[in-house]
């Protein structure tokens, strides 16, 4: 399907995007890590007495949730807009346009890995001991990337045809922040519709897996991981198929 020249192009697009985000410099990377840290400070200040009172290691609990939410929000927004943001590449060059979406996802993956390492260091510094369960972390990060990738493909496929998808998606992202247990425990919402929404929320599931291995020191149940990754891969296939079906029309609309 893809030859060596295609993979070389994907590599170069990914590296270029990464360099443009200033992540390749130490201070450039620090600035992007400050965003979730700032959110962490505000949420901790306001919620530690009530929502965080019964959550052990609440700062790390918050940080893990913010890390994955921020990565999801930033990368899907980037992936959605990439065809328009690189309009010349979309309309004037011949190569598989999915590489533009993939390069956005892969360049953010580098940030995700580094941010996760920093989070783990903070966790260890705050007294959370490392356990063999941490071997699940790479798999959980892959699960996060699969989630981000399929959402990005669907959005990237639709956005060229309807400019207000950008606005709609950002409203949904704000809602997602509250329907994902980032600053509260899932039990806070009780049973009922809210709990059902949490259970169906794939971002909540990834965050729960990461908290399980880091905070609880327990491995993720294989069935739990499988139940997450298999539908994720199916949705990735569907998103990709939609993208390829609409690809011949992108150049007319971006």
């Amino acid at each position, binding site marked *: 399907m893809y030859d*060596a*020249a295609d993979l*070389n*192009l994907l*590599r*170069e*697009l990914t590296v*270029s995007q990464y*360099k*443009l985000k200033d992540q390749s410099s130490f201070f450039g990377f620090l600035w992007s890590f400050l965003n979730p840290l700032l959110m962490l400070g505000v949420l901790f200040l306001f919620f530690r007495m009530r929502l965080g009172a019964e959550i052990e290691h609440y700062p790390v609990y918050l940080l893990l949730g913010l890390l994955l939410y921020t990565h999801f929000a930033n990368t899907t927004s980037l992936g959605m807009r990439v065809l328009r943001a*690189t309009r*010349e*590449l979309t*309309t*004037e*060059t*011949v*190569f598989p346009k999915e590489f533009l979406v993939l390069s956005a996802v892969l360049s953010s993956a580098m940030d995700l890995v580094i941010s996760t390492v920093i989070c783990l260091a903070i966790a260890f510094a705050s007294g959370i001991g490392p356990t063999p369960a941490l071997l699940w972390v790479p798999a959980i990060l892959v699960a996060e990337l699969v989630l981000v990738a399929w959402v990005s493909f669907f959005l990237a496929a639709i956005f060229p*045809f*309807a*400019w*207000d*998808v950008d606005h*709609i998606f950002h409203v949904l992202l704000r809602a997602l922040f509250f329907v994902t247990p980032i600053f509260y425990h899932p039990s806070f919402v009780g049973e009922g519709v809210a709990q059902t929404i949490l259970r169906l929320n794939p971002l909540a599931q990834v965050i729960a897996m990461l908290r399980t291995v880091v905070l609880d020191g327990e491995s993720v149940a294989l069935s739990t991981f499988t139940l997450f990754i298999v539908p994720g891969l199916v949705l990735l296939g569907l998103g990709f198929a939609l993208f390829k079906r609409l690809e*011949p*029309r992108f*150049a*007319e*609309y971006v």
Partner: protein
Amino acid sequence: MSEYLLRLRTRGLGKDFPLRDGRDTAMRVLHRLATPNDDGPGRINALVDVSFEVRAGEMVGVVGNNGAGKTTLLKLIAGIYRPSRGEIERRGELALLSGLGVGMVRDLTVRENVYLYGAICRVHRMRIRTIFDEIIAWAELGDFVSAPLRTLSTGMISRLAFSIARHIEAPILLFDEAMSAGDERFRHRCEEHFAALRGGDTSMLMTTHSLDLVERFCDRTLWLRSGEQVAFGDTKEVLSAYRRWAT
């Protein structure tokens, strides 16, 4: 000439674009999906019934006034647009150069852009590594390797891009006004490259406003006017008719 020497052929090729009244929104898209028989504001014919061919080793020029459909034709052949009507037959990999330097990033260095643009032109980084010095020397940018691309003039960027594009190995090359940003020296050096390609196996389709370039290098020429094919054939004959029409 026998069939197997054909690299590219179009038959009855046509392309419409929808007329738009304002920006598309999610509601409008849903409405269009719900009412497939509603044509909306209508469509515009950018290209109508174009039929021509390019043989192996041949250079074909495409001439016409602004808005004639030259760029649309190249993008259809490259697969960037989907045809509304007709067929395209391609034999072999193709490369499109639509404006030199497309895809280069102004905030990256010249060195970084050589690898990036090389990849866009399907020249692998391993090959770029071995020919890097030659690319920079041809482009006469030895003092700018570590400089951000934005510090270069448009002409310098065109030189750099063409220097990389010279190494494209696809059997079908599509050039869309590729030399419009260059000075006389640059155009001369590009023409040297075209001269070197002649007699080889590479087929080229070139849109240009330079009739002199078409006359010197193109074996046959296609003349488009308002999306319609006026003539296709021997370059001298087509250009003679085109000049009579233009004056």
